[in-house]
């Protein structure tokens, strides 16, 4: 049952575009005068100049300069010592760095799919509500997004205490107390819960916006054809939300793997490095006052940038984004 026109692949796209007839021999396109073209170019350059300049100053130049600095053992008091790519080797050999990447990936795995699934369910539910109830729900689900991460961390630390709410609830079931933040196996999932709570509000609203863009006629047609909720989800909602889902997945993933605040405040990276996310690992390396630590943390940050970039590229390759198809 093809309910929705499937997006065309690259080959189909090429075939679908009407071929441009070749210019008849001897007939030339009217030439734009060089002076006018130059003015137009200059206008275009001027319009993009502010962004190019800002990006150059705040992104390109610092990045290039960081790569240059990473080839030195940096000292603020002595002549920096050129060491070539030594620090890249040190970081790549470091068990701590790779462990932190694994922790970051695990945290992303715990939070991103959960946030997306919760958001999809909630957005679908809100869409089905009356205007007034939907407005109330939208405000409610967005509230966690405006909470400070620091405040949330502290609140959850209290909730996870031996005498906290989490253990009190377990006590009602004659279970616990559980050592939430000091057990190497539980600490990261325990931190992921406030992470999910903080993240699902904004995802729900974005997903709701995407859902509202899907014409109701598709669902009406599907219902006439006898499609149930799950079939509609599979064949209408998810394909038409593909770009929204891809956006939420990639941004959610890059934010999750770079999580710093929650483990910094709630566990300090422990117990036994179980919550030592990449940024926390780099931050702690930087806090060490030796010249070695300065260069090491800089190089580790550059390599983290490369790792996140590479993973994002793989995601984009696996899930191609398409233009919206609205029938």
């Amino acid at each position, binding site marked *: 049952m093809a309910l929705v026109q499937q997006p065309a692949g690259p080959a189909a796209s090429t075939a679908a575009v009407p071929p441009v007839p070749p210019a008849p021999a001897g007939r030339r396109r009217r030439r734009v005068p060089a002076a006018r073209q130059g003015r137009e170019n200059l206008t275009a350059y001027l319009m993009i100049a502010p962004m190019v300049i800002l990006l150059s100053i705040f992104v390109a130049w610092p990045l290039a300069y960081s790569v240059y600095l990473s080839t030195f053992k940096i000292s603020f008091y002595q002549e920096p010592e050129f060491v070539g790519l030594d620090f890249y080797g040190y970081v790549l050999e470091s068990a701590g760095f790779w462990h932190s990447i694994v922790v970051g990936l695990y945290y992303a795995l715990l939070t991103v799919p959960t946030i997306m699934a919760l958001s999809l369910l909630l957005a679908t539910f809100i869409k089905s509500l009356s205007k007034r109830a939907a407005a109330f729900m939208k405000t409610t689900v967005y509230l966690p997004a405006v909470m400070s991460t620091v405040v949330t961390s502290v609140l959850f630390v209290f909730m996870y205490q031996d005498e906290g709410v989490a253990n009190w609830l377990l006590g009602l079931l004659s279970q616990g107390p559980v050592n939430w933040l000091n057990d*190497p196996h539980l600490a990261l999932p325990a931190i992921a819960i406030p992470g999910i709570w903080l993240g699902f509000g904004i995802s729900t609203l974005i997903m709701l916006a995407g859902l509202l863009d899907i014409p109701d006629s598709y669902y009406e047609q599907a219902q006439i054809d006898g499609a149930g909720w799950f079939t509609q989800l599979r064949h209408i909602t998810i394909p038409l939300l593909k770009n929204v889902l891809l956006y939420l997945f990639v941004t959610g993933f890059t934010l999750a793997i770079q999580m710093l605040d929650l483990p910094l405040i709630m566990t300090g990276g422990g117990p036994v490095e179980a919550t030592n996310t990449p940024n926390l690992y780099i931050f702690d390396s930087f806090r060490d006052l030796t010249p070695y630590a300065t260069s090491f943390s800089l190089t580790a940050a550059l390599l983290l940038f490369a790792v996140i970039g590479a993973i994002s590229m793989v995601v984009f390759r696996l899930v191609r984004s398409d233009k919206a198809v609205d029938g």
Partner: protein
Amino acid sequence: MRKGYRTWIAASSAVLAASLALTGCGSGGEQKTADGRTVVTFWQQKFEDYQQAWFKKQVDTFNTNQTKIKVDLQVVPADTWPQKLKAAQAAGKAPDIATTNYGNIPAAVANGELAELDGLLPTEAFDDIKDNVRSFVTINGKHYAYPMLVEPSTVLYYRTDLAEAAGLDPAKPPASWAELDTWAAKLTQGKVKGMTIASAAPDLGWSSWGLQYNACGHLPVADDWSKSVATEPCFERLLGLYKGLYQGGYMPKQPKVGYADGTPYGQGEVAMMAGGSWVVGQLKNEFPKMIEKTAVAPFPSVDGDPSRTTATLGGWTLTVDAKSKAKQDAAEFVAWLLAGEPAIMADFFKASGFSKYTVRTSVDEALASNADASADPFMKIISERVVPNGKAEPAYPWDISLAFGTAIESAMKGGSDAPAALRKADAAINDVIKKQSLAGTAPTR
């Protein structure tokens, strides 16, 4: 096309010039007040509240009586200190004077961060420093810091009333690790745990130094820093001590505060506490009712031998930045505050509730006439039975201490058994030694 190319060249040059202007480091100039006094910046790491009040009072007094120097005191929280200091150093704006702990002095000297104080302070100022502390601030015979105090990192605090109630004799506190375990078990009653001690790697990294000496007679690194010795079996006993207390349920599994904070003991949540001598000051200031029910003792020793080290002597100094443009003025303030009139530092130790210990002979003499100091039972025990066996904090990079702290934490929380945890620490320490080229660089003091 050529014009477009030229436009791009011009635009790129402008961007590069703007970037260079923005990222260029400006070196800090010598600042003067409106009345011509030299401004000396002083960063004080945030300690107990009474210390902030004391530093402010002294700086105000100094500034009031000065015509050529004005000290600008800034209090910096401990958790932001390293990144703030590093950022300031990178920008050439490091403070002229900073609080520096003993352990950080050798690395800072090796990196050229500290000004040599010989010549900036009078010779007699250094003669006044006690012999056992002089080496803490000396590298290759030169002084790079002026010491302020020492404070043993590990002392045993215990509730006499709860000990009696549990059938234990408060006059005979535990002397060995085995006895400590027994006391902790007997004192764990209801919601009150028998003991609290560090349980997170960053706290264990430094608070266990004294007990590392106690277990093996040395730290887990060879004296010349050439290799790790963390896998020596004696360290397994140390990991066993922590593991027994944690897994036996005798200590809080989710402590609300770090090792340095004695609040759980002050609030009656635990019956015994391993803590630094500074906790005496906290108890006197914040939990005065707990004082009469508290006794202190040297932390138990692995085999009960009271002469073995149980604590490192940590503490703070004032250092002058090597790039300071007002070194002499900065040194003048340091000399006035720490090496000048003994009454100034005697006032500090009084404010601390005698929870910290002087490093100067003349201040000792000034305190001898102070009835409160000589009558303080905590001070007597700590100064007579803990400090004499104390050792200096290690000077090697923090990564080594953290690796060993992680091993203890891993054994406590069931991540690995003691030998496996120590093997992992051993590998991590050897990695630090190799990458930071530490072999043979142990400082000569």
